[in-house]
């Protein structure tokens, strides 16, 4: 059976500035999540599980780690003949010289050669910074069945939160009639998930035209979709039910991690039919010492627990020393929580060493405390 050739393009160039020190040297999609993953593992695993064989990852901001990580196609089983994960960074061109990606649409436009080369029939546009499990194959079927030129995945959000999202106003058949970016008074609660399927032929034409418009934002939401709507092309909404989270802030990243401790969050990482793949650390199994106390935690291999852990997620290589207490916190890779240290409602960045006896964070705090190396250094100075 010949398959419709859908090529996935993951937009992974964003800076993620609201994650502060976490994204100082690492692009947001490469930030660790859920013990053993990186955020982009979700999009890449969804692609693999949806039988997509060719994935482009568009990188720009601090891309060294993200590029080297994504390039290892075999991690997600995407190393078939003719398929793979291709890292696409801005390149120097004969006519226009070296130009950065100036918007989401421009990023795809600059890689039309790649999509031509892969002979794409459909293009799936994804964000590299969302946590969710989704079958894009089903969405493609809906796209084809509806005879749409573009299909946009939407999720119902609470009305009062709708003004934070791009909102789709649809008719009875879920055809999109209007798109509003962060409307003050939303008319619907269907939020765009940043997941689009485009029929390639028309997309190619619209991207080329948009590129000629000097004052365009070169953005899917602001430029391409309005142009489609204006010309009366068929845009369809595809309703997604399930867990979906944009982890753009420290609080939302922390929350998404905490969701893993719940039985009913809707994000089931145990499902053997839809595994999330990741670089498998050649770490030891998790080592739980004889004095350890663990109450509701999500812990991965390579972690060493000798202290007390409750309502927390502990990442690979992290060590919780004796008499340390970690509550409602996210402890990222290779963090060492020194003896007797107490952490409450903290998110501790990779490789941070918490000195013995240090207390950080507060119960019932409004905001989650981001613990970075800089914060520890500052705390040390104040102490002296």
């Amino acid at each position: 059976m010949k398959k419709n050739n859908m090529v996935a393009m993951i937009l992974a160039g964003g800076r993620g500035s609201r994650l502060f020190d976490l994204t100082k040297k690492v692009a947001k999609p490469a930030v660790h999540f859920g013990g053993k993953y990186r955020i982009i593992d979700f999009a890449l695993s969804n692609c693999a599980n949806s039988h997509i064989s060719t994935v482009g990852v568009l990188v720009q901001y601090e891309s060294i780690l993200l590029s080297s990580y994504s390039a290892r196609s075999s991690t997600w089983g995407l190393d078939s003949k003719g398929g793979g994960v291709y890292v696409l960074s801005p390149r120097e061109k004969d006519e226009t010289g070296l130009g950065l990606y100036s918007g989401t649409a421009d990023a795809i436009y600059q890689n039309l050669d790649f999509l031509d080369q892969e002979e794409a029939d459909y293009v799936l546009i994804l964000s590299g910074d969302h946590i969710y499990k989704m079958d894009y194959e089903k969405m493609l079927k809906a796209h084809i069945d509806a005879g749409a030129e573009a299909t946009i995945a939407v999720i119902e959000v609470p009305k009062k939160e709708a003004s934070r999202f791009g909102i789709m106003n649809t008719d009875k058949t879920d055809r999109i009639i209007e798109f509003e970016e962060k409307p003050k008074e939303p008319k619907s609660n269907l939020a765009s998930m940043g997941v689009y399927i485009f029929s390639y032929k028309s997309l190619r034409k619209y991207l080329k035209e948009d590129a000629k418009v000097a004052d365009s934002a070169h953005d899917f939401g602001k430029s391409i979709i309005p142009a489609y709507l204006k010309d009366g092309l068929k845009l369809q909404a595809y309703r997604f039910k399930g867990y979906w989270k944009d982890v753009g802030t420290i609080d939302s990243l922390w929350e998404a991690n905490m969701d893993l401790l719940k039985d009913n969050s809707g994000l089931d990482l145990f499902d053997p039919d839809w595994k999330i793949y990741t670089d498998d650390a050649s770490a030891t199994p998790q080592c739980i010492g004889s004095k350890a106390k663990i109450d509701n935690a999500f812990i991965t291999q390579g972690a060493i627990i000798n202290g007390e852990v409750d309502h927390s997620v502990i990442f690979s290589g992290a060590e919780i020393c004796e008499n340390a207490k970690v509550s409602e916190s996210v402890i990222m890779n290779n963090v060492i929580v020194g003896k007797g240290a107490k952490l409450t409602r903290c998110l501790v960045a990779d490789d941070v060493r918490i000195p013995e006896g240090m207390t950080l964070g507060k119960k019932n705090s409004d905001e989650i405390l981001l613990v970075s190396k800089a914060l520890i250094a500052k705390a040390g100075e104040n102490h002296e």
Partner: protein
Amino acid sequence: MSKVLGILNFEPSYVHVRGLEDFRPISATSILGRYRVIDFMLSNFTNSGVEAIKVFIKSRPRSTVEHITHTSYNLNSKRGKIQLLHGDTDYRNNELFNVDIQAFKTYMEFVDVENPSYVVIAPSHFIFKQDFNEILEYHIKSKNDITMLYQSVNNADTQYLMGDVVSLDEKKRVTAFHKNRGKYKKVNVSLETYVMSTLTFKQLVDEACTTSSLYSLSDIVADCVRAMKIGAYQHHGFCACISTLNAYYEANMQIKKEKELLKLINDDWPIYTMTNDSCPTLYKKGAKVSGSIVANGCQIEGTVINSVIGRNVVIKEGAVIKDSVILPDTFIDKNVKLECGVVDRLSIITHIKELKGTREEPIYIKRGDRI
């Protein structure tokens, strides 16, 4: 450097791991939750830079084949090669004749193809960490015909039973071989690891064949103790010989201590294994876990004390697992009390609420059992 061929030998006839051995060779037996026994020796080979490895399998090859084909052991996928040689077809009904020498003889053409200068033969039923370059260097410098690895142990009365024990002279040459019948605590046990030139290896195999069809490599090496210069190289650090169910159990219990674990497996000497892409382990409300090592993909609501928990194991509330080794994909239902047990893969314990063995004789629950 001269080309070295790694040979992973299959288990000798004295190895009998009650229960577990009915389903797979010892090499493919799950250990420490996320590894197979073979991972340790194969990682020794690849960490030592050996690129050509032959793995001999005595019988029931399925799980070893599956495991090795899905694990890269960090070899370059073009230059490196792990070849599986399964030699029991003609011997299926006669265990006595299924000896390593016969397997080596049958497959000698695959040794020739590699054209190695030296062979390193290592056992599949031992767990230890060893850089084989050290032994090879020593072998070449000392001008031995054969160099073998040994360890001074003080628990030979209960472990290493029926394995080889060596007597050494002051130049660290082997003067005599004996079988360990458990009479003494403190002896030098052979770790069944040999370094020799390919020429010597082929000589030994031929000689063994002309002597007896029942001869194993360790038999013929012992025979040559006067005719050849057999040197001994001392191994330090953790070592386990998985020859009985008790030895298997004890090995798990010893390595699970944080200090031993990190000495045996670390960034400088990683142990490679097959990934299962399991998510991290969820410790639910009410779970109590201490003194244990736990693999990924588990869901724990009960109590786990001083145990080894394999991948994707479910332990329901009220269950108490103590001093036990739980292999992957096992389900332990509510209020089950288990002490000193080895629970094989894919089994479900739900109706029987109390299971108790001893450290010397752990209780064994069969693979796929529903009790």
